[in-house]
């Protein structure tokens, strides 16, 4: 770690907001019909620690992809700050600052340039960033390919010659080529065949162990998250509503939305059915975030206090934070079998 002082986080996000103004024509402004501001992120605080896999879960429209874009610098935040190893990361990245945070995309079919061979793709990055001297480019490319489980013989091949799983390996090799500290993986297995998903998940775990990478793993499949992540952050409508170590989050969720997510997971075990916590309705539109607690319209525990107050993310236990005014009440409702209650 470098000169971070007391800041032990690899990436630290504070008060991050992102709004998009849409329909800004004079006509819509004149008629002022409804809200034309989309709130994608609404005050997000989050740490990514060195060498950890932090999962970011939430439904579509929760803002997780927007957060990823801001972290890699492809979009600027409306307000708030991103610090990388204690130093403020500029919204507009230069060659060096963009190098340190790399991304793996969801769709391995659109994330590789169809007209570049694997070798050309890696060589370009290695030379541009002077990772290795020119004569070592080939050796380094082979090293990267081996790292992701591919062989030297693919150097001359084009992306179209690979299957989805292999393409995702190539995309990971490309991200690793510039020797980043942080990998942002945006649903990296959800476009892959079921039988190859496990191999890619294994690869992420392996890379973390071997390279000490910090990985932000964005996902919607909680079973995958439970398997891979050290900690989980749950997002709802542009806000982090709960953060906890993985086992703790799933054993004793302290936000009703997390609880509902867990109960919604289709189970593999017979009889493991979950009736307690089915939600009504669907996520409200990010154009029109509810007043008070943003989750209250769907929350089975919601009371007047929830309609009146917007709860901040507060500690509810060691390393466990929740943004719920009824976190205590929730803790008393037992989880269905076979996960255990934690009171």
């Amino acid at each position, binding site marked *: 770690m470098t000169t971070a002082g007391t800041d032990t986080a690899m990436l630290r996000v504070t008060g991050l907001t992102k709004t998009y103004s849409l329909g800004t024509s004079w006509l819509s402004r004149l008629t002022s019909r409804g809200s034309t501001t989309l709130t994608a992120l609404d005050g997000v605080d989050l740490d990514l620690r060195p060498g950890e896999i932090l999962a970011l879960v939430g439904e579509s429209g929760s803002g997780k992809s927007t957060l990823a874009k801001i972290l890699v610098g492809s979009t600027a935040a409306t307000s708030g700050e991103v610090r990388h190893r204690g130093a403020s990361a500029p919204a507009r990245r230069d060659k060096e600052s963009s190098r340190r945070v790399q991304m793996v995309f969801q769709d391995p079919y659109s994330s590789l340039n169809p007209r570049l061979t694997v070798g050309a793709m890696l060589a370009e990055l290695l030379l541009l960033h002077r990772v290795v001297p020119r004569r070592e480019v080939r050796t380094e490319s082979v090293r990267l390919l081996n790292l992701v489980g591919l062989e030297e013989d693919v150097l001359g091949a084009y992306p179209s010659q690979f299957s989805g799983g292999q393409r995702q390996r190539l995309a990971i090799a490309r991200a690793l080529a510039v020797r980043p500290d942080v990998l942002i993986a945006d649903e990296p297995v959800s476009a892959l065949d079921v039988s190859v998903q496990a191999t890619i998940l294994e690869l992420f775990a392996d890379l973390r162990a071997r390279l000490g990478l910090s990985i932000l793993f964005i996902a919607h499949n909680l079973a995958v998250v*439970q398997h891979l992540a050290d900690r989980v952050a749950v997002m709802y409508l542009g806000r982090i509503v709960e953060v906890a170590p993985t086992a703790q989050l799933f054993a004793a969720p302290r936000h009703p939305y997390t609880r*509902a997510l867990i109960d919604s997971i289709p189970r593999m075990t017979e009889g493991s059915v979950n009736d307690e916590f089915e939600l009504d309705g669907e996520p409200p539109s990010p154009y029109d975030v509810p007043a008070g607690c943003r989750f209250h319209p769907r929350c089975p525990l919601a009371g007047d206090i929830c309609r009146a107050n917007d709860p901040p993310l507060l500690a509810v236990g060691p390393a466990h934070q929740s943004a719920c005014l009824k976190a205590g009440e929730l803790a008393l409702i037992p989880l269905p079998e076979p996960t255990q209650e934690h009171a």
Partner: protein
Amino acid sequence: MPGATAQTAARRASHVPVQPGVPLLSVQDLTIGIRGSAGRSVAIVEGVSFDVAPGQRMGIVGESGSGKSLTLRAIAGLLPKPVEVLSGRVEYGGADLLTMPAKKRRTLMGPEIAMIFQEPMTALNPVVRVGDQIAEGPRRHLGMSAKEAGELAVSMMARTGIPDPRRRARAYPHELSGGLRQRIMIAMAVSCGPRLLLCDEPTTALDVTVQLQVLRLLERLCSDTGTSLVFVTHDLAVINQTCSELAVMYAGHIVESGRVAEVFRQPRHPYTRGLLESAPDFDRPDRELIPIPGFPPNVADRPAGCPFAPRCGYVRDHCTEAMPPLAEVAPGRLSACYESDRLTEVLA
């Protein structure tokens, strides 16, 4: 609401009598592919057979390219060109849908057989109000007046759990969320009271909390009306929550079938076992994931013999010689594996 169902049932001129003990749907030796010149055809789905009894809920699980969606589309008569049925039979209540005159087959689609797609946005007409789209089937097939059908549409929407159905009926598809659109699709599919519902990954595009709601809805509708279900998905857990029977497809073949709980407990085909062991199970977080090596074969150059052989840990010489037949390995359990006797381990 029960009134609406009774009304639909009474209105329906039954095209196909259902006899007890006879499967509602019987797919026999179905081969789907592209017909080539000089008899050089490519089969994408080969020799698929299964029965669905009245009221039974059948899941077909497989990866992309396994042929599960094509099988479903062949039943519905919706194969994309140039793909066609090369041989086999699809019997509905004893009558072969494939040799039936197109006009007669069309009269079955809606009142007898209905289909729900993965992406409701592309399956709904963007310029017609959703209420009118739901009402169209009952008007055409059950001879309802516009007013009656409109009322039925609203009650169907209420049954699928759409809040404020009377107002929502006047909405256009783009004004509704993904979950609501999928409910509209379901309301449309069940509006004529079909006896067979075909679902092609109906919840894949939905968020988890909404997925649960939609799965519950399908389950409830089917058990209320005794509708049979054929449910295609890549997600084993979703099958577990919706279906009682399961067929696993790999590279165009059914490789294993049986009751869901039994197949999950004791898979008798190495591919099924591989799928179960490589998928994270939320209830067993500490279990190690065992990936299946390699990747599915290209339809074009499937290996001779068992298509799974190159990835299989149980492979022996005879596996690469001829495709093992789908044979009964236990009461109600079929497996297309020469080595199925070696797969007797019960997964915890």
